[in-house]
């Protein structure tokens, strides 16, 4: 009998999760497992994820991989599934408490932010930075982690990985982009209108960065403004190579998914559950390496990127 493995992502739309699904599918086919997929309606749709867990348990999944939309609120539903003998692995972001799942295969979003923050700071040197932040969505944990990480890396005081709110000290303009290119562009346009001196743009992901670039280009400022981002999708890395994005923190969703599926197959075969935290890593991708910040170039980025 084929082992059934469920994968629940945050949304159906974000390419990051779509690629994660593809990675899982490929691995499942390779290992002879059956993959079930579901997603929330939108970022933050906790109830949808709970429903998906229940339906997958009912369908006989023995392993569930989940990228929790709400790290705390999802915990009781996970507990119920685990009580029914299902191994639950969190992908991409942890639950709170982290012990609510059997294992976590993830990347450190705060660290990803720190990397681009440091790089941006080193790039700016002594020039006075005027920062715009194109965030995800009000109160979104991934958005908060990346944003605050960036600020810490940039050297803003008083930010730590425990800070629960978006910190806006030192930021000239903060806008939500919903991780969407068009909305990112609108946000950037409005920020430029507010403060034409903006010279550093932190973006939540690469589509938002592409939108920001478009706005800067229209204003004739694409050369003088630094854009940093997080994700490391192939389109994003190509933008790094083209000079659209200065640097991006690359993450590895396919790796997370493949590891998760492998662990699920292993559990089905041997009954041994995976455990602990496996950091799937983050690498800074830039073609303008700076001293003191470890980075890889675009070629490395393209070889390891997700998507097309």
């Amino acid at each position, binding site marked *: 009998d084929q082992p059934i493995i469920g994968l629940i992502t945050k949304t159906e739309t974000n390419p990051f999760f779509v690629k994660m699904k593809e990675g899982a599918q490929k691995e499942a086919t390779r290992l002879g497992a059956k993959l079930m*997929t579901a997603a929330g309606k939108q970022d*933050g749709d*906790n*109830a*949808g994820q709970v*429903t998906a867990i229940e339906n997958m348990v*009912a*369908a006989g999944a023995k392993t569930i991989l989940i990228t929790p939309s709400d790290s705390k*609120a999802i915990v009781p539903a996970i507990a119920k599934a685990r009580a029914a003998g299902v191994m639950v692995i969190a992908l991409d972001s942890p639950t709170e408490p982290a012990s609510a799942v059997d294992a976590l295969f993830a990347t450190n979003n705060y660290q990803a932010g720190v990397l681009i923050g440091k790089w941006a700071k080193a790039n700016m040197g002594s020039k006075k930075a005027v920062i715009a932040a194109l965030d995800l969505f009000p109160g979104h944990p991934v958005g908060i982690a990346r944003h605050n990480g960036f600020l810490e890396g940039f050297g803003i005081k008083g930010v730590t990985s425990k800070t629960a709110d978006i910190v806006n000290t030192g930021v000239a303009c903060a806008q939500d982009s919903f991780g969407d290119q068009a909305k990112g562009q609108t946000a950037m346009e409005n920020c430029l209108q507010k403060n034409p001196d903006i010279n550093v743009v932190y973006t939540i992901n690469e589509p938002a960065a592409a939108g920001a670039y478009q706005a800067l280009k229209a204003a004739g400022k694409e050369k003088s403004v630094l854009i940093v981002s997080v994700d490391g999708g192939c389109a994003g890395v190509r933008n790094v190579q083209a000079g659209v994005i200065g640097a991006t923190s690359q993450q590895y969703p396919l790796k997370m998914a493949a590891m998760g599926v492998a662990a699920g197959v292993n559990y089905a075969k041997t009954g041994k559950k995976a455990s602990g935290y496996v950091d799937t890593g983050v690498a800074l991708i830039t073609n303008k390496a700076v001293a003191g910040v470890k980075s890889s170039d675009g070629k490395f980025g393209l070889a390891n990127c997700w998507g097309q």
Partner: protein
Amino acid sequence: MTQPSTTMPAKSAASLPNLSTLGPLIALLLATLFFMIFAPNFFKLSTFSLILQQASVVGVIAIAQTLIILTAGIDLSCGMIMALSSMVIGKLAVEQGWPVALAILTGLGVGALIGWLNGVLITLVKLPPFIVTLGMYSIVFALVRIYSKATSVPMPPDGLTFLAQRFAVFGATFSYGSLLMLALFLLTWLYLKSTAPGRHIYALGNNPEAVRLSGIPQNRLLISVYTVAGLLYGVAALLLLERIGGASPEAGQTENLESITAVVIGGTSLFGGRGNVLGTLIGVLIVGVFRSGLTLMGVDSVYQYLVTGILIILAVATDQFSRRKS
């Protein structure tokens, strides 16, 4: 959607009360039959109990939405009011240590208050329900984030009330929450069918001028509908808290469209005055059956969207054809 019109000879048969839930029911039965045949594990009592549980939150919201749509209104703020209400209950009961009953009452009160405000803006200031509740969605969205500091509040393991408990029937566990939803549907059905204010709600959507001229205190009625709706969102908040075991600041963003969908699938006209709350229950269940059945069939989640879209259209088409027959 029955078009508003002075004359509707051809359509009038469809509005006979006994027929209006028959169409959706046939669609529900067809869908169930389909999945019984094609979805492994679907034909189990536990699957049905699961569908009921999953439907309970949207179900209670859809009751309120039905009341509002019957008056020719609409409520886009429903899910957000629920989110705020659940956050209030969660924070007060768990973080501030208030007595559970008091926290729940406060949460229900907050829901009712915002509903009342919706009602006042719609009736007294005479603003379109769409705009009032859309604006309220934005306002409450912000309030939820400010109040919760964007952090969720987990419940104690046993929940706050008995609603978190489940009981077994023939090996399948049912939740008290789904029972509460069913009871509320039954009550609302009786209310709409058998009480004077219930009938006035229909009349209001049917011909507001007739209601005005007949001397019914129209504004009071409409405000009370929105207030009761707010209260029901409070109840939904409680069900949500108990069902997912915590208050999440991200809750409530999709419930408006989901509940309106259930109402319309259930055969209630968006123009008001025609429909049946039991149809809404069937609408909620149809959506739940699709979701469950497709997952059990192992349909990829992207294709689930494709199939759900087709099935929703088919379900309502079935409804239409079964009405035209009769």
